[in-house]
């Protein structure tokens, strides 16, 4: 059979109250152009909504665009909810306005990758290829 292999499914969400989803949409599009199947969930999503959607969609990774400064709380909550649903194997990554000083702490919490506004498309793809290759 002509089995075509497909790249991983990734959910992109924009938690928080502000309506700026340019960053989230940008990442969604570069991922699509790299062959990923991106489930885009839109703005103002709660961690509960994001995790529930990710579990139903069985994505390999969740990408959060955080501009509110509440990244520690948000990532912490998403990781905790994933654990509660037996879905800790879903990787979590993020971007937005996250100060470099907070990155080690996020990584220690279990966040797989943090991208800064300066990250190139190529570096994002390379990293996500790696993250989603595990257990695919």
């Amino acid at each position: 059979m002509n089995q075509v292999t497909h790249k991983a499914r990734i959910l992109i969400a924009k938690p928080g109250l502000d309506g700026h989803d340019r960053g989230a949409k940008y990442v969604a599009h570069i991922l699509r152009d790299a062959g990923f199947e991106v489930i885009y969930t839109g703005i103002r999503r709660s961690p509960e909504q994001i995790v529930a959607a990710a579990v139903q969609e069985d994505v390999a990774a969740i990408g959060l665009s955080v501009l509110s400064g509440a990244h520690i709380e948000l990532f912490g909550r998403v990781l905790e909810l994933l654990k509660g649903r037996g879905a800790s194997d879903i990787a979590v990554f993020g971007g937005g306005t996250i100060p470099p000083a907070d990155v080690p702490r996020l990584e220690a919490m279990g966040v797989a990758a943090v991208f800064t506004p300066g990250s190139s498309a190529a570096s994002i793809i390379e990293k996500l290829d790696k993250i989603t290759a595990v257990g695919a």
Partner: protein
Amino acid sequence: MQDARREGPTATRAAGRLMSLLDNQPQRLSELLAVAPDEADTPEPDMVLGITGPPGAGKSTLTNRLVAEFRKRYPDERIGVIAVDPSSPFTGGAVLGDRVRMMDHALDDGVFIRSLASRGHLGGLALGVRGVLRVMSVIGCKRVLIETVGVGQSEVEVARVADLVAIVFAPGMGDSVQLLKAGLMEAGDLFVVNKADRDGADALYHQILSTLSLRPVQAHTPHGGVSLLDQCQAHGGEPGHDEPGAQKTEVSAYHLMQPDVLLVSALESHGIEKLADALEYRAATFGQTWRSQRRQRIHDDIRDAILEEARDRLSTTLGTNGTVSEHVRHILAGGETVQSVAAKLIRRAADRQEPIT
């Protein structure tokens, strides 16, 4: 499999995983879904509804409203949504955005939404739809709504999976008229003119009615939409009259039943109850027919799978035995025809192969 049928937070996880496995390896369906062959115990949805129509017509918004309406009517019954969006033909990637309009239900355990990329499959449906549908049935979804991509032959394709098809139109879209002309009217059980809050919706509604040569009939059906079941009875399809079995009568009524045409605004949530009534009326009337249709379709799917397998095997044989070019000479000389050669080669190939069972 057993995990997916249980209740609780990890059940959804199991169901989601199972869908992925089937999406990537549909041939493992039977192995993965190995349930006791006790038919009574195997749950089946009451209704599998295909929702199709041009891009931007409001399919996702409407689906979101229908889900809310059915959840209100049946708080204890699960509902599934399969939302298909196109894959990029260039990169194979996709942005699946239908869910954006359905996030109202993200926290409702009674609603299972799954987005699929069409993965280059023509016809607007992903190959994985059948597998997802099976899992949704097994986890007890009583209603499943399938939103197709808004292009091409999706009306026809979704009709092979769904019990009934709703085609969604909206005013101000040039291609609505094209779709009407293209003979797709036969594919729809319901025609939904969405964006009733916009100019031109009324005109489109009447245009569809006249294309179908229907007159708006009020009060003949419980939902007050347009339905000509009464006309089919006037044509002599009186139940139980000349048909030996009840089922057969129902089938003939099924084929005679005219489509419903409804005007709704998904955005403002107008007309959704009437649409749900129309759907339920059909489910109540044709539920039995749908069940036998699903079985017939499985027959067809098996046949298609056999044909595909046979095609693969034959082309391998033909590719290796090298006698084809010899036959070309005979055909050119006039001693054979393409058909006679084909018949000969098929017989030969079949002799060498194990029979396909």
